[in-house]
């Protein structure tokens, strides 16, 4: 309690603690504020109208200003206690960081690049998961076929009534031929819009579930794949018992190659995710998932587009082509095209 406070009026020299009161942080701010304001204006425009709204010189200035503001932030953190200044710099650097390192592609460029490069190479990375998914599906098909072949009552247990739509143990050879395999074409609006869309919606939902439930360690993915196989196997047995197996396969092949390909891709992606969750390796589960999840998601997204193609083929064209050999030919051709695409596209070119 030695120095009692005193009110000193207008004589700063008398107390050494506060001479002219030149604050380093204020000087620092005075020297840099102009470039912060410039960066703020640039970022504001880029946020409102996109990076493309900036001119060439401004685009050149942007990273320079960003780095100098970043270093301002570092300095300010060690010398300044002005809360508003610190918050402002933190905010400005974060905004410009997102702008400088933000995505540069438009949707169309992204899509094009995706089809040339991303999708086929992502599919190639999950080829072992694809093989595993194929095995699951085949196990289902064989089991479903076997069960229904022995006892047709299994059909109604394996195929939900909405999918069976009247077909079942009571169907005869002629009813299957007329109402299903060679049913008349319902006309463009009904076929392309309604039918394709219902099929697409149904298929994508199955595909999305198959993919995303990979998060649950892959068990639901495997179950869904086997379940899809079971239903298909049951259908095969039903037609086999009526001597229609060849025609049925032709009827399915026209879109089925694409559709089953898409389901298998979704399954493969789901299993790849499950793989990361079960065996995260060097990283934590969440990091490992983030590192590999994008690749799996690319596969699943591509599969959605395959489903779209399959929906068009199934709803629109299937009933237009009323000959089994021709249908088989189309099916084989699509299968060949897809395999070539996945094996060859985007290979060798730099990533």
């Amino acid at each position: 309690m030695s120095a009692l406070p005193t009110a000193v009026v207008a004589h700063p020299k008398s107390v050494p603690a506060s001479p002219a009161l030149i604050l380093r942080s204020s000087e620092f701010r005075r020297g840099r504020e102009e470039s912060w304001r410039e960066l703020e204006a640039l970022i504001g425009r880029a946020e409102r109208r996109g990076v493309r709204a900036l001119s060439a010189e401004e685009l050149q200035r942007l990273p320079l200003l960003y780095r100098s503001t970043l270093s301002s932030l570092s300095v300010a953190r060690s010398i300044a206690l002005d809360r508003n200044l610190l918050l402002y710099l933190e905010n400005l650097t974060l905004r410009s960081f997102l702008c400088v390192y933000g995505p540069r592609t438009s949707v169309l460029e992204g899509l094009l690049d995706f089809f040339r490069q991303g999708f086929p190479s992502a599919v190639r990375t999950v080829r072992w998961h694809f093989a595993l998914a194929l095995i699951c599906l085949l196990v289902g098909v064989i089991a479903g076929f076997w069960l229904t072949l022995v006892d047709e009552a299994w059909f109604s247990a394996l195929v939900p009534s909405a999918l069976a739509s009247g077909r079942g143990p009571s169907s005869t050879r002629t009813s299957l031929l007329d109402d299903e395999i060679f049913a008349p074409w319902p006309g463009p609006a009904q076929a392309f819009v309604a039918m394709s869309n219902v099929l697409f919606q149904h298929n994508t939902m199955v595909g999305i579930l198959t993919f995303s439930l990979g998060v649950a360690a892959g068990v639901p993915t495997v179950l869904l794949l086997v379940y899809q196989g079971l239903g298909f196997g049951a259908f095969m047995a039903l037609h086999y018992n009526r001597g229609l197996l060849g025609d049925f396969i032709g009827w399915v092949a026209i879109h089925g190659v694409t559709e089953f390909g898409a389901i298998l891709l979704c399954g493969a992606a789901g299993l790849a995710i499950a793989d990361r969750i079960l065996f995260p390796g060097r990283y934590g589960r969440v990091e490992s998932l983030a590192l590999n999840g994008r690749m799996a998601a690319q596969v699943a997204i591509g599969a959605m587009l395959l489903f779209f193609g399959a929906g068009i083929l199934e709803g629109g064209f299937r009933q237009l082509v009323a000959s089994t050999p021709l249908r088989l030919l189309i099916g084989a051709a699509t299968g060949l095209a897809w395999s070539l695409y996945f094996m060859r596209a985007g290979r060798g070119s730099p990533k």
Partner: protein
Amino acid sequence: MTTGHELASTFLDGGGRSRRELMTPEGVPLTVDLADYGERAVAFVLDFVLCSAATALIYLLFILLPFGGTTGIVARSLVLFIAFVVRNFYFIHFELSWQGATPGKRMVGLRVVDRRGGPLVPSAVVARNLTREIEAFLPLGLLQSPMGSGGASWEELSLGLWLLLFAALPFVNRDRMRAGDLIAGTMVVALPRRVLLGDLVESAVRYSFTDKQLRAYGAFELQVLEELLRRPAGADTKRLLREVCEKICRRIEWSTPLPDAEIGGFLREFYTAERAFLEREQLFGKPHPDKHYPSNATGSGPPLG
């Protein structure tokens, strides 16, 4: 050690914000505020309304075109299909070209960022948005699909359970990620625009304070005082300032009485002197996070001045 700046942020925001650190490629850590659940919900609703409006508009265009019968199942399919394309295009397009913001997110002040501080890559944007199909639109689709009628089957029940799990996901992880964020390695942060206000430093010196008086407070109290001085003028602010001024005078044993008109100027000068003192101390490697920090002021070297 927590700095005074962090203490002040926690105190002034009521501790409601969860903060994370992003490391930029340049090696400077940036602090980000995680978005609240409410903010994200509002942004999503806004985006959903915009998407629906766009869908309706495109559907109207289709109806006006001579395009076959648009009744019953055809119309419904058309709407569903347009909605599917529109919403995916919408989210992906805006998050790509607006640096991680959609119109709804921009209105609320949210951004999608890479969780590890890297660039936000297109495949991450695409992945996080397509996963939304399962989280939000699958239940909507199932509600109106033809398979949805006919009582609750075990399939629908199990689907419902999965959807609940997905909806609950952001509430059970600390970065508030939904499944799409988890897969894409992203998180959603609140990024309101901040403005640089004027410096509060007062150049005119009418009062002066000793180091001993200035040692009474730390950076935390300084920044709270700054926030107080930046409040818009009013009767409420005036009352607060007077209370704070009295407290400060008592603590630093300032005996000269201050008239009401002088309070603002006195506080600003005290702020300036305190900030000059604390910044100097910090530069010499002796930071004072708050007033409790150096419990024995004489313990750390000879007192200055």
